[in-house]
C-alpha cells in the first residue's frame, strides 16, 4: 500500500512537470500568436505549420546559447536565482487539484500530488517564496537595470502578496476550510453556487493581485522593457533566462487554476460539460484574459502601482472581510 502511493506520487510529479514545462513553451507560442492577431499581424509562421515548431526552435536556441555570467556578479546567487523561480512555481502546483477524481484501469486516480488540508496557504506561501528568484537575480547581476528590477520585485510582489492574501480571507471564511478540494466542493451544484457571485469584490481584488504577482503586463514592472532594459533578467542568457520564463508561465497557470478553483466553481461539472473539461475551459479563458489585457492596457508607473495597492486594494479587501464577517455573524 505504501509503495503504491509513493509510485503514484512520483508518476504524478513527473506528469505535472512535463505537462507544465511543455505548456509553458506552448503558451509563449500562443501569446505571440494572440498578441499578433490583436495587432493585425501574423506572428510566428515560418517554422513548421502555422509556426508551431517555433517552440522547438526556441528551445534549441535557449539550450545552445552561451551561458553568460558577468564578471562582477555574485556567482552562486546569480546561478541559483532562476532555479528558485522555476522550482517554487512547480512546487506550488503540488497542492492544486487539477481535475476531479477519475477511474483508470479500475484504480481511482486523484489528480492532486498531495492533498494537504492547508492547500491555499501552501500555494500562496510557496508562490511568495518565488519572489526570491527575481529579487536575488536582480541584486546579484552587478547591473543597475537588474538592480532596479530587483528593487521593483520587492515593492511589487511583496505588497501584492498582502492584497491577495487578504482578499482570499473572505471566501475562506465562508467555506471554512483551507483545502482547495473543500473550496471546490462548496460550489457544487451549478453556476449559481459559484463564490464569484457572493464575493465579486474578492474575485476582482484577487485577479488584480494575480496579475501583479505573475508580473503580467499592466503590472509588468520587473522587466519593463521601456524603462529598464530587461529588468532583473538583463544579464541572463540561455537556459537560465528560460528558467525565469518557464517559472513565470507556470505561475500563470497556478494563478489561473487558483482563480477558477476558488471563485469560478473549479472542476464541478457545468450543464453537460464534464468537470475535467470545465476547468480546462475556465483556465484557458483566464489565460486568454491575461494575454488580452497585455495587448490592450498600458504599463503603469511604480508609484501608481504602490498607490493602487496600499490605498485602494488593501483597504477594500479589509472592508470586504469586515462585511463578510458581519453577514456571517448575522
Amino acid at each position, binding site marked *: 500500500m505504501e509503495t503504491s502511493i509513493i509510485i503514484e506520487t512520483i508518476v504524478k510529479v513527473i506528469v505535472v512537470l512535463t505537462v507544465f514545462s511543455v505548456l509553458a513553451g506552448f503558451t509563449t507560442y500562443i501569446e505571440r500568436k*494572440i498578441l499578433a*492577431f*490583436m*495587432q*493585425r*499581424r*501574423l506572428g510566428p*509562421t515560418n517554422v513548421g505549420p502555422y509556426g508551431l515548431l517555433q517552440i522547438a526552435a526556441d528551445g534549441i536556441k535557449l539550450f545552445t546559447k552561451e551561458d553568460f555570467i558577468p564578471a562582477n556578479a555574485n556567482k552562486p546567487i546569480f546561478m541559483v536565482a532562476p532555479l528558485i523561480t522555476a522550482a517554487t512555481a512547480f512546487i506550488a502546483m503540488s497542492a492544486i487539484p487539477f481535475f476531479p477524481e477519475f477511474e483508470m484501469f479500475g484504480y481511482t486516480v486523484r489528480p492532486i500530488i498531495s492533498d494537504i488540508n492547508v492547500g491555499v496557504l501552501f500555494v500562496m506561501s510557496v508562490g511568495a517564496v518565488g519572489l526570491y528568484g527575481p529579487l536575488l537575480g536582480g541584486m546579484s547581476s552587478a547591473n543597475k537595470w537588474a538592480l532596479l528590477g530587483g528593487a521593483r520585485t520587492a515593492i511589487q510582489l511583496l505588497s501584492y502578496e498582502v492584497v491577495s492574501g487578504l482578499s482570499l480571507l473572505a471566501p475562506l471564511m465562508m467555506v471554512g476550510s483551507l483545502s482547495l478540494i473543500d473550496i471546490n466542493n462548496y460550489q457544487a451544484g451549478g453556476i449559481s453556487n459559484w463564490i464569484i457571485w457572493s464575493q465579486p469584490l474578492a474575485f476582482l481584488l484577487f485577479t488584480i493581485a494575480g496579475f501583479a504577482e505573475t508580473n503580467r503586463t499592466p503590472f509588468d514592472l520587473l522587466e519593463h522593457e521601456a524603462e529598464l532594459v530587461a529588468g532583473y533578467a538583463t544579464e541572463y542568457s540561455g537556459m537560465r533566462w528560460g528558467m525565469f520564463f518557464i517559472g513565470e508561465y507556470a505561475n500563470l497557470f497556478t494563478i489561473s487554476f487558483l482563480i477558477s478553483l476558488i471563485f469560478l466553481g473549479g472542476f464541478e461539472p457545468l450543464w453537460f460539460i464534464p468537470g475535467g473539461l470545465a476547468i480546462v475551459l475556465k483556465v484557458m479563458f483566464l489565460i486568454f484574459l491575461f494575454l*488580452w*489585457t497585455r*495587448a*490592450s*492596457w498600458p504599463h503603469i508607473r511604480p508609484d501608481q502601482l504602490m498607490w493602487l495597492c496600499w490605498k*485602494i486594494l488593501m483597504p477594500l479587501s479589509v472592508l470586504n472581510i469586515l462585511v463578510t464577517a458581519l453577514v456571517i455573524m448575522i
Partner: protein
Amino acid sequence: MGFEEFKNRNISEDYVVVQEDNYPKTSWESFKQVITRSVKGELFTGLKITFKMMTGALFKGEMATVQYPKEKLPIGPRYRAVHKLLVLLESGEERCIGCGLCEKICISNCIRMETRIDENSRKEVLEYTINMGRCIFCGYCAEVCPELAIVHGGRYENSSEQRAHFSLKEDILTPFDQINQQTEFAGYGSVSVDADEKIKKTPLSY
C-alpha cells in the same frame, strides 16, 4: 507676411485637449478622478477594441502583414531608387553622350565620369560611378540629362558591408542582351505621355 499660419501645427480641427486646466489639486480630487475613471470603464473599452481587431484579423482577413522578402508592395512609377543608364533601343548604343551635366548638377558630388574623344572624334564615356553612400536620390541628374540616359530605377534592396558602395557603370547600364526588356522610362524626369500635343511650335518653324 507673418508666420502665424506656419506656427499653427494643429493638423486637425478635431483635437481634444486632455486635462487642459482641470488637474486634480487636492488628494480628494485625485481620488475622485481615479474612481470616475475606473467606473467609466475606459479599460474595458480598450479590451473591446483589441478584441474587435483580433476578430477582424482572424475572420475578416484584415491582416496588415506583408511577407516582405516573398511578397513586395508595388512602388510608384515616380519612385526614385538606384539609378539606371539606359541604351538606345534600336542600336543598343549608350545614350549617354558624356556631356557631364549630371556630374555638374549633382548637389552631393557623388557622380563621377571619365570621358575621352575616340577615333571617330565623338565623346566616349569610359567610367561612370555613383557613390551610393553619398547620393541623396534628389533626382536632379535624371532631370537634367538631355538624352534621358540616366534615370532612377526601382531597385531599392541595396545592402552592403560598406556605407559607400559604388554603382559602377556595368551595374547600372542596361546589358546588351536585355535590351528588349528595357522599357521607356515613365518616372521622374521622363517625357510625359502627351508631350507631342503639349509642344508648341517655335517661331522658327513658321
